[in-house]
């Protein structure tokens, strides 16, 4: 019968349409599932990243946290060459040399970060800390700022007062583009640090120690081959950026003390 042919074709066409619809539905479902899977994967990934970031931040903050000063400081004594030694009596090693410039921002950062660790180590009798004040700047206004401050610090003859003055100078550090460390301020900060010596004011005003400071500074930069300030040396070896990580600095010094 001729009718068979078109009917058969019709059925197969309907079947084809139905199966196409089914395929389309399945495809939509597949896409929906894929989207959902994608969202889950995305959220999981972001979650894992956030967790890792949090852990790393915690570790970074912890290992770089500054110490608190725990007790009385070790005795501080001025040396004839202008360096300052902070050590318990009888402690001669390991030697921690700090080469710094009052005007240098990174030195201020070192002081803020690791200054307390150095004080604690000296107080614990674990190290002999030697401060070397330098002037690395060759341009104005930074050079004069540095020279005025360094000269004034040399006018302080008492160790404890010197350290208080030293810390104050960093607190008051001028920017590198402005004149600072004015003589009047230096005298006032000296008084705040407990300096009562009558000749302190004339010493600061007259910048009497500039020549001695400059001579020492030039000589040290040349002989120690310093790349810059601050440089912290442990038994003559530069600690590099370890000096900026209180926990690592402490560990290095304690290792050397063993």
């Amino acid at each position, binding site marked *: 019968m001729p009718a068979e042919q078109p009917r058969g074709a019709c059925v197969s066409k309907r079947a084809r349409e139905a199966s196409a619809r089914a395929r389309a539905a399945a495809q939509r479902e597949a896409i929906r599932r*894929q*989207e959902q*899977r*994608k969202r889950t*994967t*995305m959220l999981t*990934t*972001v979650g894992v*990243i956030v967790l*890792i*970031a949090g852990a*790393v*931040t915690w570790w*970074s*903050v912890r290992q*770089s946290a500054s110490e608190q000063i725990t007790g009385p400081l070790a005795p501080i004594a001025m040396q004839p060459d202008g360096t300052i030694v902070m050590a318990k009596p009888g402690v001669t090693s390991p030697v921690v040399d700090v080469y710094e410039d009052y005007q*240098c*921002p*990174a030195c201020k*950062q*070192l002081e*803020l*970060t*690791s200054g307390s660790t150095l004080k604690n180590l000296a107080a614990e009798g674990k190290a002999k800390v030697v401060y070397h004040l330098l002037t*690395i*700047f*060759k*341009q104005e206004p930074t050079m004069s700022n540095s020279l005025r401050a360094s000269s004034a610090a040399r006018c302080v003859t008492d160790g404890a007062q010197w350290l208080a003055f030293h810390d104050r100078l960093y607190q008051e550090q001028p*920017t*590198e*583009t402005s004149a600072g460390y004015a003589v009047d301020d230096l005298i006032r900060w000296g008084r705040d640090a407990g300096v009562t010596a009558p000749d302190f004011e004339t010493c600061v005003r007259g910048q009497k120690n500039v020549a001695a400071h400059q001579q020492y500074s030039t000589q040290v930069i040349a002989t120690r081959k310093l790349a*810059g300030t601050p440089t912290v040396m442990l038994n003559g070896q530069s600690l590099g*950026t*370890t000096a*900026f*990580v209180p926990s*690592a600095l402490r560990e290095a010094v304690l290792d050397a003390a063993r």
Partner: protein
Amino acid sequence: MVQLASGRPVSHPLQSVVKALSWVTTVARLVLGVSLFVAGAIKIGAPAVSVQAVKAYQLLPDTMATVVGHGLPIVEIIVGILLVLGLLTRPSAVVGGVLMVAFIVGISSAWARGLRIDCGCFGGGGTVGADQDPGYIWELLRDAGYLLCAAWIIYRPPGRFAMDSALGLSGSRDPDTAGDEDDEDGSDTD
């Protein structure tokens, strides 16, 4: 089916161009990712140094500089790893690009103000000695290059060898790169 049957031979040369371009993305990801990772890895051990490097630009108040100094190495390391893996490629490249724009702004501004600073890009940082050359122009050119990498990755993520593809995180948004995923071809041909 009809589309594909007729599309196949036509798209063949195109397909190979697309493939080549996705390799460019991979290279850009490696260049930017490895650089960011190295820059962050050098700095992360001593955040105080990186804080100092940020302060040296004299653009942010001290508290912000402290946050940025601590956070930047972590962001650099994570974004660097993500770019190398090709994971969350486009967002990572956006972050990398934003960082580069910030660096370019910071360095240009330091240059314009006559500050003499070591960018602190790869560790170090702080003031440059009087007789040293800060080399701002090279830093700017380098960062512009990295910015270009970031822009390319944003334009054509995620490239070959990307975890985004393996995890099915890429595709539907970008028809160009979806074409070289094999499951797409497989489902259409039957």
